[in-house]
């Protein structure tokens, strides 16, 4: 229990900066919303009305965002609990995002910048989908088999990056960017093959995964929320243990923090790079499996959405810590789920959510700026991010 307390304490110490960055992003987002409302431009003459309208449109938009991500009173007419439907949607979106975020986080800790979660997610989705629709297995076993298919395929795909880096020194950023392209087009091609073509359909969608390979829903058919979120949380805990308690994690962190010292102490850097990337691939791939088996039930061309790219933001926001990553992914899940409602209920486009996400990254990436704005001195900076980017 004590250790948990310590972990929380340490996390909260490093959480100030991300929180402030998020706050700034929301603030600037509010300004954008206010000014994206055409009405406001007619009110230059009367400052009071101008301000009032500005506040109102930003307020409406953010209210809609909350309605779409946490609780919506309009849904309670049949059943009060249904009001929490938006919250359940937040978890549905967050589950794959936690997993891809962990993939980037783990790589960070080993000094690698994994831009490839998107491609790894796609391969995971392919593996889960194929095992899911092509075989007929008993319940539970089928789901486990589909997950295994996803992990193995995506793990190999990720491991390839580490292997290339260890063997030839090829920079993982470039390799993963290229592999992302390959993944996307491979998926498109795959969806056009006989095996993956759904009967009677011409569009790129694979056959649905069998009932036995779907993740069970948690609260009945009214909600999409499924076991995926618990898988994600459990895996996050495992990654925490991996990093803090195991000899593998120790090597990962050592190589990430000082490759030369790790090498001099006899650690095998190629082994670390390859094994880390296998695990990272498996994590993102598991995200793909959760998406296919938990909410989509079929492989489509757009299955990966931007889960793999948002993962980078999530890992940054979560300061490359498992708990931080989970929290950041939940936040982003909420933004994503709420953004749809915001777009539907107000004139504010969902793009504003993307802008807020981008601003968060910007503010995180520039801690000096945030510090200057808030005149902070002692907030921990981002030095625990071990990845060295282009110089790595």
């Amino acid at each position, binding site marked *: 229990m004590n250790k948990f307390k310590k972990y929380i304490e340490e996390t909260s110490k490093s959480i100030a900066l991300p929180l402030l960055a998020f706050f700034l992003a929301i603030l600037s987002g509010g300004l954008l919303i206010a000014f994206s409302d055409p009405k406001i431009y007619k009110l230059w003459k009367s400052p009071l009305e101008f301000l009032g309208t500005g506040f109102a449109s930003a307020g409406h938009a953010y209210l809609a965002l909350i309605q779409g991500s946490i609780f919506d009173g309009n849904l309670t007419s049949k059943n009060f609990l249904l009001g929490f439907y938006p919250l359940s949607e937040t978890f549905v979106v967050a589950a794959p995002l936690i997993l891809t975020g962990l993939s980037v986080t783990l790589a960070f800790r080993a000094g690698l910048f994994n831009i490839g979660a998107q491609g790894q997610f796609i391969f995971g989705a392919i593996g889960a989908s194929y095992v899911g629709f092509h075989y007929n297995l008993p319940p539970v076993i089928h789901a486990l088999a589909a997950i295994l298919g996803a992990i193995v395929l995506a793990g190999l795909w990720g491991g390839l990056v580490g292997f290339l880096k260890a063997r030839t020194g090829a920079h993982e950023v470039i390799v993963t960017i290229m592999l992302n392209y390959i993944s996307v087009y491979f998926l498109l091609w795959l969806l056009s093959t006989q095996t993956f073509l759904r009967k009677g359909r011409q569009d790129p969608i694979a056959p649905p995964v069998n009932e036995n390979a779907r993740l069970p829903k948690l609260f009945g058919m009214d909600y999409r929320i499924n076991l995926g979120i618990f898988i994600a949380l459990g895996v996050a805990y495992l990654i925490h243990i991996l990093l803090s308690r195991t000899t*593998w994690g120790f090597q990962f962190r050592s190589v990430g923090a000082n490759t030369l010292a*790790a090498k001099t102490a006899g650690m095998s850097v190629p082994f670390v790079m390859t094994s880390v990337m296998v695990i990272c691939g498996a994590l993102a791939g598991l995200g793909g499996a959760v998406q296919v088996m938990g909410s989509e039930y079929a492989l489509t061309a757009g299955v990966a959405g931007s889960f793999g790219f948002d993962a980078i933001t999530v890992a940054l926001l979560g300061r490359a810590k498992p708990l931080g990553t989970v929290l950041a992914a939940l936040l982003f899940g909420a933004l994503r789920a709420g953004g749809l409602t915001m777009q539907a209920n107000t004139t504010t486009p969902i793009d504003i959510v993307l802008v807020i996400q981008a601003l968060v990254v910007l503010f995180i990436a520039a801690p000096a700026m945030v510090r200057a704005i808030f005149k902070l001195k002692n907030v921990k900076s981002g030095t625990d991010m071990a990845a060295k980017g282009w110089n790595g």
Partner: protein
Amino acid sequence: MSVELRGITKSFGALVANDGIDLRVETGEIHAILGENGAGKSTLMNILYGLLSPDSGQILVDEKPIIISEPSDALAAGIGMVHQHFMLIPVFTVAENIVLGHEKVNGFGVLDLEKARSEIARISKEFNFDVDPDAVVETLPVGIQQRVEVIRALIYNAKVLILDEPTAVLTPQETDELLQVMKNLKKQGTSIIFITHKLREVQEAADRITIIRRGKIVGTALPTASQEDLASQMVGRPVDLTMNKSPAKIGKTLLEISNLTVTDSTGRELIHDISLDVHAGEIVAVAGVQGNGQTEFARAILNLEEHVSGSILVDGKDILGETVRGSLHSGIAFIPESRELDGLIGSFSIAENLILDTFDLAPNAKGLLMSPNTVTNEAVKRITEFDIRSQGANELVSSLSGGNKQKVVLARELSRPVKIVVASQPTRGLDVGSIEFVHEKIVQERDAGRAVLLFSTELDEVFALADRIAVMYRGTIIDIVPATISRSDLGLLMAGVKPKVSS
């Protein structure tokens, strides 16, 4: 010209780097400032040279108060400085470097170097400097680069010359030459402020000595003072500078290196055909000027180099081509050259750094799971045993002082079961107190029957510890001599010259 500093105080946050310092340098004297690393010497000189501004205090030149707010003010007042880290542009010629910042152009707008050239030639001749104005700086040996810095100061008519740790990068011969240059300058009436923490040099060149400790002046001395006296004022407690070591009790050969050659990836030889035996119970020092292949030699023994041929027998077993881990666990303790770069992980705790090479062995881990409690408990023991001054086993290594960092490395490497100790520049950049500690540990290892191979560029260290000395020059061992060799003969060997009388 005389210079006086009055009540100079300078703080960096909570740290008071200079605390009310009064210092007077007379015309034509060599005034040594002696102090450990971090005592505040560079800070004081940077203030005098206008690179830092003091929180309070006054500077007087020839009894008149002046304000120095940037280096050009200092130069105008006749104060020049040669920095601890050279400030030359490697790809420029000597003349270009010297006019840098004071460029004059001729009628066609082209840089006019003629005047600089002739000035350099004049000063060069006057002080017997032997510097070619048209040589590209990066092709010059360090000692000559330093003279370029000195010339730069003199060309702007410096009457007071600040030399900040000028000998740290020099060979023994170059050091002697520099001391001679300083004496020549003094004869011409130039005052010199000579910063160092090497006692021998102070005794040889200084007229007066001021000792600084933790930002305060703690005493003044004359060059006739004993080294023990100077050292204890510098450290603040009695110091025993003579290593009391008994004669070596030599045992069997533990490390047998034959025909070791290391090349880089293009096939260029970095070290060539080295053969060397080290026996149980002896310290063999590899002496040499920095950059003569010592780094590669040490790393090759641990299989950290990639293109190696020859053989490395550890207690009779050839480990060449083993993994690094295999080499370490064959019984070699390795103190790498740079504690910050390859010895330690700054963002890890002391406890974690103490298990960098044994993290997965019992009792630090059971299978895949590490045992944090055991690791911490063991760390607490090491911290006491090696006197690592810290706030506890969980303190981050990056916040420790240099000496304590090195103690962490020693504690890690010497607490494993080893037969051989390979130590690369183990006291580089350490203060006197820590040097003493490291030396004691190394002698203890020897007396416990281990074979010690010590790489050092410091003559004092070599003479304090070695039972035999192997001299490295241009990637090979040019001679192996007994520790009774004279200082000057060893200096010559390090410069590649074999004296007539040699073993």
